[in-house]
């Protein structure tokens, strides 16, 4: 593999990793702060993608579709937390697994009823629909670079939110010790709602911005869900920083694995996870 090739594969890995991070960040936050394991997280990714397709067709603009979709996703997240999830914080993980597995079925079917079972494509916005020539045969699509840029921006935003704002402070406090936080007069219920909505929103945004390059199809949620869990476990549950590092690692292992050792490609990421857990059973950056 020559150097140019290597660079391109590196770019590919980072782009994939950043997208995974968007999904994993939401999942790790929800689990770290509310202790809820949510198997339906992939469904939010799928909902985001389908909304992007649907609204782009309606408004003829991907950007507008993303804005509308994000608002809807956040609202959905809030409602789900308020109406269903908050009764499950104290239930054991088994019940949560079961509940969210049932939700996966429901979301898949709702999607089928609302939008059908066809595979769809979302067009890349004209402005971004060009490629940068890297070698005489290969170009790199600009949209992928923009996508990575958005993920980075959101990651920075998340970091600032959690560590530099009052809301972030309350979130961290609530994760650390819920009763004390409540005793100090902070509305922990509100915090939980915000965190859940944030997680769902991130997943949906990931689905939306990825839709032009990922295709919109039934079952896209499950494939991404498992990868997401792997990232969360490697990074350490509850750690957003861990999710970032782990996501990039997974992106690297997956991309280079596919190219260098195709027979082990699918397994590679899981081997990585097993390895990490052997030495750090609670993940790389456990809180």
């Amino acid at each position, binding site marked *: 593999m020559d150097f140019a090739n290597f660079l391109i594969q590196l770019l590919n890995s980072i782009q994939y990793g950043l997208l995974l991070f968007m999904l994993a960040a939401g999942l790790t936050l929800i*689990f770290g702060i509310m*202790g809820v*394991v949510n*198997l339906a997280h992939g469904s939010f990714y799928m909902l985001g993608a389908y909304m992007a397709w649907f609204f782009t067709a309606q408004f003829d603009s991907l950007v507008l579709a993303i804005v509308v979709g994000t608002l809807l996703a956040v609202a959905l997240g809030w409602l789900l937390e308020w109406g269903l999830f908050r009764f499950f914080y104290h*239930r*054991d*993980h*088994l*019940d949560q*697994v*079961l*509940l969210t*597995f*049932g*939700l*996966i*079925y*429901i*979301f*898949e*079917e*709702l999607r*089928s*009823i609302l939008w059908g079972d066809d595979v769809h494509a979302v067009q890349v916005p004209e402005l971004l629909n060009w490629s940068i020539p890297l070698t005489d045969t290969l170009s790199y699509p600009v949209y992928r670079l923009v996508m990575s840029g958005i993920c980075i921006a959101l990651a920075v935003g998340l970091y600032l939110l959690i560590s530099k704002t009052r809301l972030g402070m309350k979130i961290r406090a609530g994760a650390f010790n819920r009763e004390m936080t409540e005793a100090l007069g902070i509305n922990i219920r509100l915090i939980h709602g915000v965190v859940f909505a944030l997680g769902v929103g991130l997943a949906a945004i990931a689905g939306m911005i990825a839709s032009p390059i990922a295709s919109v199809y039934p079952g896209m949620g*499950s494939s991404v869900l*498992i990868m997401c*869990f*792997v990232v*969360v*476990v490697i990074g350490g*549950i509850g750690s957003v920083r861990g999710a970032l590092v782990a996501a990039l690692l997974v992106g690297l292992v997956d991309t280079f694995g596919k190219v260098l050792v*195709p*027979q*082990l*490609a*699918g*397994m590679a990421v*899981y*081997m990585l*996870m*097993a390895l990490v*857990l*052997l030495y750090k*059973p*609670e993940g790389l950056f456990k809180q």
Partner: protein
Amino acid sequence: MSSPKATLEKLPRGVQVLLGVGALALAAFPFVPVDGRDFYLQMITQMMILAIFAMSLDLLQGVTGLVSLGHAAYFGLAGYALAFLTPADNPVALWWSLPLAAGAAGLAALVIGFFVVRTHGIYFIMVTMAFAQMIYFLFFDNKSLGGSDGIYVYFRPDASAVGIDLENRTHFYYFTLAALIGVYLLLRRLLFSPFGRALSGIRVNEHRMRAVGYGTFGYKLAAFTLAGTLAGVAGYLWAAQTGFVNPELMGFHMSAHAIMMVILGGMGNFAGAIVGAFAFEYVMHFFKDMTKHWQLLMGGFIVLVVIVAPRGLLGLGEKMFGRNKGGRL
């Protein structure tokens, strides 16, 4: 954090009666002249196989308190073992292929368990899933192992040594029924043995068990291995019956279905696992017959069960029939 709720260990009279009636009904079914008998025989055989699978998970989950999202790996491995052992033109003998396949599954469980049993809570759940996914991809990515297309098992195992022809649907049905009852009785015995008591103790409070001097790691590993072996028995039967194995047998969905069956029925007493398996499959077939959008109903059903019947159908049954002396059978 992940301690499942207290379970019905001693089954109330009502449930015992139900089980007895059920066993008799199953034994009598092949004699009922129904239209499409072959189809129903096959369907019920499949349910019985899944019941064995569910019971194996119940040992791990309901009794020992270890929630595994990767139990299907051992189910599938044994199935694949049968597929590899069966040549293209001849059946393989039952008497050694079944122990070998189940043993292979058990060995895998032992090895994986060694890595996995050290973790706790949500990590345990995740790691079991990770290893199962790893095995899934091992088979999925490699054509030499069949790849995503899977492998066919051209002949059912040869049990002529004991006078049974497994290619005959009815014989296979009774063989599976015998296996179901056998595994059930074995596990019930185990539950009330010192080993089983130790496992229950670990579920309730592992620290306390350690404080009293139990080597909990060893016990958990043993439970994990035994559960994997029994899952292998079920997987072997499944491969023999359907004549086909593919990586989906080891996948996430299969493992999740197993968990649901166990929870649906009621955990920790093995009877619940049987009831759960039958109920789950029945409900799924029913919904599928009803509408194309059966997944919606299935999902709704699952959510309903979690909210309304957290101790499963047997838990509900307990409420309805009242808790009386109950027994160990």
